[in-house]
């Protein structure tokens, strides 16, 4: 028998449930290393994250790229293992251990078959405490990094993001998305050793483990045995730098042979601890996050300007970069830019309707729950909460805080942060194909893509 149901309209479903996070066991070792443990027996893999306050903003000015080179070289030779032996031991436990540098943090991510959790922790301790940066590995990494940078700077979205960050963050280290080649050339083994030994210290670090962790005492003993005698040491603060005030500027980066223009508009906003953050997050969602957002619906689905039309909020520890953008064919650059700025204006002028607000609330809160689905993703969220200095209940209160944002708060956030006059605008494309559209854009600076 087939049940009857009305297939002509969407089914009515119960409201979104409140997602409960698993229990997090949080404590410190006596040397200051913060631990967050989640016993999650769903899969036979253990995931870990070890994060340090040692991201790119800790690079001394003439040595931009030091944090990322340190991260990339941590497993290329330690006091006890050659690079090759280290790689083979990681592989033999079904493991991965990768370190990377973000604007704020240096983060090691890893996983292994859970029966080898103790070995994974031993290897993690070895790379973070005893990396020795052999000369030949350093030279090879520098050589290849220079080539990778040339490649990355051939990508139009990288060119646009890099230029936008410079305009938005001025002299602050957040302005540097990628290091310059000259800076990479200046870095040597001594600087790498100094960076590791001064910043990779237990009281400057957070270790998160998620997986089938087994007996707690035995696990804590294992962690103690690998990290317990790690000496704390006062770590240097990043150099102080002011953020510039948001201001309108327009830069056209001339990229020969481009068949499209990459349009980005952005500015500095506020970090996740600021009272404006949640209203801003909801405003950004209404504007340009997801396929029911205004930018997608209007610029792509109605006007047919671009395939990817978006806005995003990229939080950093001390700020957040707001940006909106698309990539369009040369003949519609001015029209697309104008349409984009119109959408920013209209959010500041009129309050969002109840349905649009509810869509944004639900999209943010539902996908938030989904983003905590896997053990690795949960480990990443817990690490981010701790390193960014967010309240302990940040993940538990995320949903109600989003839901509490009203239409008038969205409008106020848009008035404060989406004013087109406060935006830096970057266009990347073949300048010779922009004929006749320049005056609409207003006064602008034209630059060449660095060869």
């Amino acid at each position, binding site marked *: 028998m*087939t049940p*009857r*149901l009305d*297939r002509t309209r*969407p*089914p009515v*479903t*119960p409201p*979104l*449930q409140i997602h409960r996070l698993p229990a997090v066991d949080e404590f410190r070792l006596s040397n200051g290393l913060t631990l967050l443990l989640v016993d999650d*027996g769903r899969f*036979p*893999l253990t995931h870990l994250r070890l994060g340090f306050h040692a991201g790119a903003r800790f690079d001394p000015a003439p040595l931009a790229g030091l944090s990322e080179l340190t991260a990339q070289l941590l497993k290329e030779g330690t006091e006890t293992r050659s*690079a*090759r032996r*280290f*790689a*083979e031991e990681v*592989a033999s*436990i*079904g493991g991965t251990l990768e370190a990377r540098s973000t604007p704020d943090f240096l983060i090691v991510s890893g*996983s*292994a*078959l*859970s*029966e080898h959790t103790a070995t994974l922790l031993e290897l993690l301790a070895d790379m973070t405490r005893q990396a020795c940066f052999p000369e030949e590995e350093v030279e*090879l990494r520098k*050589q*290849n990094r220079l*080539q*990778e940078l*040339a*490649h990355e*700077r*051939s*990508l*139009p979205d990288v060119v646009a993001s890099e230029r936008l960050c410079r305009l938005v963050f001025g002299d602050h280290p957040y302005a540097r998305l990628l290091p310059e080649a000259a800076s990479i050339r200046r870095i040597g083994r001594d600087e790498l050793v100094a960076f590791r030994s001064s910043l990779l210290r237990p009281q400057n670090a957070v270790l998160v483990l998620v997986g089938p962790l087994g007996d707690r005492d035995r696990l804590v003993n294992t962690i103690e045995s690998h990290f317990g005698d790690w000496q704390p040491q006062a770590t240097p603060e990043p150099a102080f730098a002011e953020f510039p005030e948001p201001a309108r500027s327009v830069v056209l980066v001339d990229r*020969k*042979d481009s*068949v*499209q223009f990459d349009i980005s508009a952005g500015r500095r906003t506020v970090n996740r601890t600021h009272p404006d953050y949640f209203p801003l997050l909801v405003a950004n969602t209404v504007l340009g996050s*997801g*396929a*029911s957002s205004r930018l997608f619906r209007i610029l792509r689905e*109605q006007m*047919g300007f*671009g*395939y990817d039309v978006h806005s995003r909020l990229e939080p950093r520890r001390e700020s957040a970069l707001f940006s909106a953008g698309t*990539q*369009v064919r040369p003949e519609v650059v001015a029209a697309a830019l104008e349409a984009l700025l119109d959408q920013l204006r209209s959010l500041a002028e009129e309050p969002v309707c109840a349905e649009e607000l509810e*869509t944004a609330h*639900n*999209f943010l809160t*539902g*996908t938030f*729950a*989904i983003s905590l*689905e896997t*053990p690795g993703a949960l480990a990443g969220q817990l690490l981010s909460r701790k390193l960014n200095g967010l309240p302990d209940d940040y993940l538990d209160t995320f949903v109600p805080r989003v839901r509490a944002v009203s239409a008038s708060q969205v409008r106020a956030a848009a008035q404060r942060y989406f004013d087109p006059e406060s935006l830096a605008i970057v266009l990347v494309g073949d300048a010779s194909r922009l004929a006749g559209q320049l005056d609409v854009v207003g006064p602008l600076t034209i630059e060449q893509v660095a*060869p």
Partner: protein
Amino acid sequence: MTSSTFTLPLERYRLDNGLRVVLSRDPTAPVVAVYLIYGVGARSEEFGRSGFAHLFEHMMFQGSCHAPKGLHFQIVEANGGYLNGSTHPDYTDYFEVLPSNKLPVALWLEADRMRGLVINEENLANQKEAVKEERRLRLDNQPYVTAIVDLWPRLLFRNWTNYHSLIGSFEDLDAATVDDVARFFKTYYAPNNAVLVLAGDFDLEESKRLIEAYFHDIEPQPAPPRPSTTEPEPDGERSAVYEDPHARIPALILGFPGPPRRCPDYYALGVLDVILTAGASARFQQNLVKGRRSVIQYEANLGWPFASASDYIDPGAYSIFLLHHPSFRTREVLDHVMEELGRIQDDGPSREELERARSFLRAEHVKQLESNIGRAQLLGRHELLDGDAGLVNTELERFLEVTAEQIQSAAQRRLDPAVRAVLEIAPGRREGDES
């Protein structure tokens, strides 16, 4: 529980109209993935209609019987989920990931658009523009991608069905009509040409009732035609040089005709690929990036670039893409890579290498299944392409059984220099370059 005892629960059945259903329940996270995979892809296209399967995928989001344009996106996001679709050589798939109590929304949407689409001139014209911008964004304005997507398949395959551009030419896209779209829909988007998968937190009995109620009376269609994908015997090496205006670093693509899916050599090459390219202990990293210092980055796979080992239908290929240091000529780097392949052909892998590869495969298998959408995809692809979603629990073992001797002999048979394809990608000259 260890990686060898980790299995997914699953139930398979078929509705009267031929729709295959796979259910895999796991209530540990409040998330459900709904995945629909159709037996149609770029290899279903007719000559002169390159890119049509992908253009059609866009049309699946432009409105259906009771869900007008825009509602599909809106309703999924308004219920806290996300969605997407993708077009491959041998299949096209669509998914929604939702908080688990929103499952009926996804079933309603998928059934509604399987029942009928809103196909009109305006939507088609709009999506042609979106696809052209997608092509400019992903191919024409990027280094390497045009070479990979449009040129590389022409060196690997001789049959238009297998080598034509998946995203299509602007000319072919413009030629597509509303009638083409309607015909394509009727031919390929029938329940008996699809698999529906649910993975995650849902009630089994309730879900079966809903699936029956939403999908049972959608009309089946005659089995769709499949153009011949037969390839002639390879008649020697094929090579080309492409000057890429956007590339700054030289690159090389090397490939060989692939073994039939799920034959013994398929598993052997799968393990060999791990030994050559997976992780920092792999031979390419140790011998080419480090030893030779010629290679900078690489990726490789059976099925690359449009498919993976787990989801290509024959004919496939084993391809390797490498960026290399400009101080080496591309042909030198080719020699370095061939030398690595030759060492496997001469000596096979070591016992330790094989053990490491097995650990890698065990861990990768689990990683792929950690998210509900990851499970749903693998289940659906096995059901559609192999006729058995249950392979998700047994296929790993076939890879783990591969011996060093099998790898060596598969390398000798399948990585034959006489039938290789080679594409050199040279950075294009630009103003300011020294001549």
